[in-house]
């Protein structure tokens, strides 16, 4: 026999000003099953919680209904309170009479009527509530970080320093990511290599970190605490255990015309290569697309000069299967393809470059040794035009199909480029065309103002309409509009630099599918809560680090990387995970094997299995039935409403309970 207690909260004046709380408590008294009801000013306070606890003990309550704020706010608080006196926490029900009632109504009479209805619905559900117990699963104490840029490296280091094993999977032959390609960093102008390469060494030497470079994740199975991941180790054709990175093979390789992606294809490398001198791991890789031996069978020079016999032309891709407790996505970004912005003549002139190419042109380790020159003729540029927001902040009707968001870092790196260029060549004329200059951040606006005020960079609010390579002068004719002076401008430029939009790395979308982690329409991973859970995916056990979650500069990336690591450490430090008992389960006798629940499940929690059933006539029959993995299920309920036979039900929110609530509201 149910004995239900109803506790109506005033929430100060939040509820009490538009709901007659005493009337709600009074109305509860006449609802069948309710044996006690009362109201109190702050039910969530210690005194309020004690009132509930005392009443449970005094009146022998079996179920508790609290009429208060949203269950998102204080359900956990009240559940904990009743659990402390030995009541199953799932016997407690919250009726939301604040967010969904008092806050949206002005008329007290109407508000009270609605609060009573919501109270009755909660009582009806509570009548059917049954005790639920959460199960637990063990935790594999090893983390996987996907991506070896600054985000992935920082996350891995922080987890490893806490004493847990971490593996980094990186698609490139070396870790380091985009930051290793940058010349200097804003706003301090410290050398990017000088701060990132020591970090790479630290990662490489850390006893708790294993780097799988030149590798990819190809399959993810399992669930939080118990992931099984397949890692494809692409064939390097060089034995990692033997190569010393001496570079003799690279020197002798006759295949010289391979575009060097490390230098944004501004120069060439060999078919066997180490991306750059500080690579980690410093191991040579043969590029199978260009190697003469692999493509024609003739050559083999590298094998002859290798002192440690590390070259193996017969190498094949290898696959590893490793278990992890947590996975961190740190897949980073890439620049959009600017060739569709043909008005800027990127495809027609080598002197039109992207910002990342410009970065390499200024880097001491770049193709020009840090001597900034025009790619076309090697001359020093006298006039440079920077175009902002190429592909960022585009409206829906734009024919380019660019990104709606702001890429966030372009305003700052353009100011950096302008200042560094002026430092190289003080007499250079620099124009920056912008929509808005966005420089919030510590010392950011001061930095931008320095470019304008001290370095005399011409910032022009406006847009470039056309860049025309001029065959006669060898320059770029830039046609632009100054929107403040309402003037047309013609600028003869030596170089044009495009601040192209940054987009999530192309590997992010397939990875999200493997991880069953939600993404937004721009292919950024979605965080579990925009404000309160910014480094976790909605999928349990998946964490987000760096640009893959949204545009970020380096300090923000490092902060988020550390936050993601803290969450992973919190998970890995547990021996087992207590699950949420409000999960779906399937009545196997009612299941017709249609697979609809499996198709709608966003978490991959439902699988089908062939199972033997003993029928009433004592024969056995093999039937295909759904089975829910309670450790993966997040209790969203999508399967229960999809199931045509009513076999699927959600514990804590059973079909019966929901119907009872609806009946209480409508009948």
């Amino acid at each position, binding site marked *: 026999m149910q004995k239900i207690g109803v506790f109506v909260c005033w929430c100060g004046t939040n509820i009490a000003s538009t709901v007659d709380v005493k009337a709600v408590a009074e109305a509860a008294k006449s609802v069948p099953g309710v044996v006690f009801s009362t109201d109190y000013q702050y039910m969530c306070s210690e005194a309020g919680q004690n009132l509930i606890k005392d009443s449970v003990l005094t009146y022998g309550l079996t179920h508790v209904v609290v009429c208060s704020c949203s269950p998102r706010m204080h359900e956990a608080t009240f559940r904990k309170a009743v659990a402390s006196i030995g009541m199953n926490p799932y016997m407690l029900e919250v009726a939301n009479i604040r967010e969904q009632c008092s806050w949206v109504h002005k008329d007290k009479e109407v508000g009270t009527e609605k609060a009573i209805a919501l109270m009755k619905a909660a009582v009806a559900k509570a009548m059917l509530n049954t005790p639920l117990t959460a199960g637990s699963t063990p935790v594999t104490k090893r983390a996987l970080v996907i991506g070896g840029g600054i985000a992935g490296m920082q996350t891995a280091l922080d987890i490893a320093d806490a004493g847990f094993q971490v593996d980094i999977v990186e698609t490139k032959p070396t870790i380091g990511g985009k930051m290793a390609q940058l010349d200097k960093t804003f706003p301090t102008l410290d050398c990017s290599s000088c701060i990132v390469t020591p970090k790479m060494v630290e990662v490489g030497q850390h006893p708790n970190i294993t780097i799988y470079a030149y590798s990819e994740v190809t399959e993810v199975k399992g669930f939080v605490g118990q992931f099984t991941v397949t890692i494809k180790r692409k064939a390097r054709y060089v034995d990692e255990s033997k190569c010393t990175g001496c570079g003799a093979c690279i020197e002798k390789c006759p295949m010289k015309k391979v575009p060097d992606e490390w230098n944004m294809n501004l120069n060439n490398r060999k078919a066997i290569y180490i991306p750059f001198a500080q690579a980690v791991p410093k191991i040579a890789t043969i590029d199978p697309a260009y190697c003469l031996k692999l493509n024609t069978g003739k050559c083999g020079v590298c094998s002859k000069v290798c002192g440690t016999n590390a070259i193996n032309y017969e190498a094949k891709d290898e696959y590893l299967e490793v278990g992890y407790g947590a996975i961190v996505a740190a897949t980073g970004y890439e620049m959009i393809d600017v060739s*569709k912005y043909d008005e800027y003549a990127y495809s027609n002139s080598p002197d039109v470059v992207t910002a990342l190419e410009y970065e390499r042109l200024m880097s001491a380790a770049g193709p020009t040794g840090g001597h900034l020159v025009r790619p076309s003729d090697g001359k020093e540029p006298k006039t440079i035009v920077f175009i902002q927001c190429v592909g960022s902040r585009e409206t829906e009707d734009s024919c380019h199909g660019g990104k709606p968001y702001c890429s966030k870092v372009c305003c700052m790196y353009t100011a950096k480029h302008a200042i560094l260029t002026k430092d190289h060549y003080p007499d250079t004329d620099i124009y920056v065309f912008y929509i808005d200059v966005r420089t919030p951040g510590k010392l950011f606006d001061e930095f931008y103002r320095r470019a304008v005020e001290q370095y005399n960079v011409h910032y022009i609010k406006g847009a470039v309409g*056309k860049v*025309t390579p001029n065959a006669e002068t060898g320059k770029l004719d830039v046609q632009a509009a100054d929107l403040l002076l309402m003037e047309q401008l013609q600028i003869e430029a030596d170089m044009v630099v495009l601040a192209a939009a940054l987009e999530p790395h192309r590997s992010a979308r397939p990875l999200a599918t493997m991880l069953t982690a939600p993404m937004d329409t721009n292919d950024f991973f979605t965080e579990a809560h925009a404000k309160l859970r910014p480094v976790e995916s909605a999928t349990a056990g998946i964490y987000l680090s760096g640009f893959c979650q949204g545009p970020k500069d380096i300090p923000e990336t490092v902060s988020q990387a550390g936050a993601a690591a803290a969450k992973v450490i919190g998970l890995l430090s547990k021996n087992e995970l207590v699950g949420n008992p409000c999960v779906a389960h399937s009545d196997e006798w009612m299941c017709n094997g249609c697979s609809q629940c499996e198709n709608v499940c966003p978490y991959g929690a439902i699988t089908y299995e062939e199972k033997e059933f003993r029928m009433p006539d004592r024969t056995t029959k093999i039937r295909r039935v759904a089975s829910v993995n309670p450790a993966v299920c997040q209790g969203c309920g999508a399967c229960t409403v999809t199931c045509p036979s009513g076999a699927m039900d959600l514990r804590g929110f059973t079909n019966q309970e929901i119907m009872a609530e609806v009946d209480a509201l409508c009948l």
Partner: protein
Amino acid sequence: MVYSYFPGCTLKNKAKELDLCGRAALKALGISLEEIPEWQCCGGVYPLSHDEIAIRLSSIRALRYAKQHEQPLLTMCSACHNVIKQVNHDMASDEYIRTRANAYMAQEGYEPYAGEARVVHLLELLRDDVGYDKLKEAVRKPLTGRKIGAYYGCLLLRPSNVMEMDNAENPTIMEDLIRALGAEAVVYAQRNECCGGYLTLEDPQIPKQRAEVILRNAKASGAGMIVTACPLCFYNLKRHAAESGVEIRYLTEILAEALDVRGSEAEEV
């Protein structure tokens, strides 16, 4: 294949060559045109205001004719093409315009129209329906050795998500045609910029400056001739072309010349 043909006002007087040479060339390629009876001026410019329904009606009447006869609607003039194609897009995608325009159509006793007709420009007909390979075979007098620059202007390609003819910023449809006719296509940056258009009525200096920039760029890139499909571009460029020595022609003129239908057959039509 039979096409409903919308010539447009200019093609009947100032730009006769565009019309006559185009018809002759298509005849030689085995394509029949049915000129829409009682066609009316397209309006010259696409009405940007949402509530201007009346001046969209002439385009809709032409589109409706093509739909009724189950023929694609062919245009040769860039401006007509731009107006008709944009209006067709409105009728397919904009409920407000469609409902109000169809209310007018109902008064004329016609069924509602919802953008069903396919609008093709001569260039699209040659590229997609005939095929440049086939066209190349039909060329009797290849324009070998000629250096020709295509001039797209602004109307032919934009707005690109409606016109869907080619990449608006780096088009190739006219260059490919020039190559199919045996000439060398000169690619120059200004080929898809505005010539100044109707501003010639308000301030002739603007089209003059624009024409000079375009002609200088084309000449520096090696073009001896510029071809266009737009009578207004033709007018603005031709007025200022003398100094540069660049010849300005309609693209149908070189088409007819290569197919060797210029003259007798052109006059017959």
